[in-house]
């Protein structure tokens, strides 16, 4: 029984992390109709930067967020302005996949080049500590990562709902032409939206690295589950992605008991194929999805 509770709690924590990681993907798709394959490569990049920061300064790796979040925001705006807008509108979605795939390869290659392929791990002073929670032992790092995810997603929600920029961003997502008609500079909004998505990758990558060994090709391991989450949730829907992330995270964690870690991974792909068979536009929102 306690094994079940433990898995359930770990599954919820994992789901929160997945929701954070997938939210960025949904943002790109919402504002730009761009599928960002390089998102998980940026996660790994953020994780490496956190590791590098921690090993070279001796400070807590979480402090690296002060640098990586603004940095990733600027990189995101730059990527959108310099590269994505060059693609032709008619083939934007398809070509964006290839372009960001190329970016992912470049990041992976550079990481291997600079940091070598050796597996790295960030050390925290509280790395081996765990706290009892409803009769289960939960590692502190997982709780911190979850807290980070909640903070980031809460911040994202506040930006989207409470700020003028968030309003403009939501208007751009819902109807670009109408947003332009009322005087929103949709190009600028789109680039900031892209930057925001990449900023979530900075937080997500650091949260991810708290509890995982990192290596340059790790991003391939993440791209499948994240893509499955946004397809199941309905491309472009932030709440859909969050719900799908939570459901699939818990499912994966629970299935690990009878199936083992490798086969539990396949739950994402099964969910992906079932979604396409039953409801290609995804289970939440996402009336746009089928066309793209």
């Amino acid at each position: 029984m306690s094994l079940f509770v433990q898995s359930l709690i770990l599954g919820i924590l994992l789901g929160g992390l997945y929701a954070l990681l997938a939210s960025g993907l949904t943002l790109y798709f919402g504002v730009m109709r761009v599928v960002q394959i390089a998102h998980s490569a940026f996660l790994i990049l953020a994780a490496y930067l956190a590791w590098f920061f921690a090993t070279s300064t001796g400070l807590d790796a979480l402090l690296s967020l002060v640098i990586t979040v603004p940095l990733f925001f600027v990189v995101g705006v730059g990527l959108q302005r310099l590269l994505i807008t060059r693609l032709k509108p008619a083939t934007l979605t398809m070509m964006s996949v290839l372009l960001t795939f190329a970016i992912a390869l470049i990041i992976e290659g550079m990481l291997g080049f600079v940091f070598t392929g050796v597996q790295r791990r960030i050390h925290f002073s509280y790395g081996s500590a765990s706290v009892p929670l409803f009769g289960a032992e939960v590692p502190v790092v997982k709780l911190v990562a979850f807290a980070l995810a909640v903070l980031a997603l809460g911040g994202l929600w506040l930006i989207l709902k409470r700020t003028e920029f968030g309003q403009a961003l939501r208007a751009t997502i819902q109807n670009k032409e109408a947003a332009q008609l009322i005087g929103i500079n949709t190009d600028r909004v789109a680039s900031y939206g892209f930057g925001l998505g990449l900023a979530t990758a900075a937080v997500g990558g650091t949260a991810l690295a708290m509890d995982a060994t990192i290596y340059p090709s790790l991003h391939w391991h993440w791209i499948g589950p994240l893509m499955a989450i946004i397809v199941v949730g309905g491309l472009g829907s932030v709440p859909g992605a969050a719900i799908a992330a939570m459901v699939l995270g818990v499912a994966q964690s629970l299935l690990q008991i009878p199936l083992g870690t490798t086969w539990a991974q396949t739950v994402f792909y099964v969910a992906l194929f079932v979604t396409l068979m039953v409801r290609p536009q995804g289970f939440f929102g996402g009336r746009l999805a089928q066309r793209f």
Partner: protein
Amino acid sequence: MRNASETLELERALTGARWLTAARVIALLALAAVLVVFPQTTKVGYLLSTGVVILNYAVTATGWNFMGGFTGYISLGHAAYFGLGAYGTGILVVKAGLSPFLALALAALIVAVIAVPIGIAALRVRGASFVIVTIAFVLILLLMFQSMGSITGGSGGLSLPRPFPDLIRTDHHRTFYYIYLGLLAVMLLAWWAIDRSRFGMGLKAVREDEDKARSLGVPTTGAKLVAFILSAFFTGLGGGLYALWFGDLDPVFQFSIMMGAYMVLMSLLGGVRSLFGPLLGALVVGIAIEFFKAQYGDTQFHLVATGLLLAVVVLFMPEGVIPAVKGLFARFGPQASSIREISAADLAAERDAEEASKP
């Protein structure tokens, strides 16, 4: 009635078109001659095996283009069919004891059968979602083939006996070179036949505007599925042949996203709309990849190089090298039309010239 200058222009266009056709035929024959003669000119095993590797790239890229080129659906996961073909052949030879080439044919058929449900699921969505599904399919197969160690050998790999045990190394490479060349020729012929057929016309209508094609009565779903299966079948054949030639399989290499990326890169670079585009792309990119691996094999530099090349192709010549070069020549060559707006007569002349240039 055409006036004198228009007739002159038309004649000039026709002569130009004839020259172009002749030049094309000569270039094609030269390429074919080089490809056929190449293995006779060397006894160096490394060069011969590189030749086989390049042909393997050409076969997979051309196989990819049955789907990507005709329908415009970009699959980043065709390595799945390559790997299934390779492992299917390997398992049938090692575990079932079939003769190598029977196993190859059977494995390719099995791949085609597996492609049916995958195609039905994947083709329900378009564009980006389709790409996501194809990537997911490779990743799930990689997981499965690594886990099922008792059948696939897991991460330890699967070793095949050589199909021609009496041949020395260089002759082994040379034999497979010609088998690959034969397969490539058959595939190019099939692509060419589809390109000129009514079926191919329907597929190209899907590429241009799927909704319109459908409203005009093109059976888009069926056509896409047939193209998908055909593409998987040929890619599976390539994979099976690779298994017989190389003799050693590992899930990480057979079900690699990079393999699928190479197919896309080669096809896009050469041009997905032309028959020889993927072959051209495979010659350029394949030689570059092998060079990079030989020079910087220990570093991850080949990933960066591939990424940069892909980004450049996507940003600056998404139609491929062949149309890009043609456009460049057109810019520096004599202009097709003067400053005045193009007239109906000009258009008719252009059409006639195009008709005449078709073989």
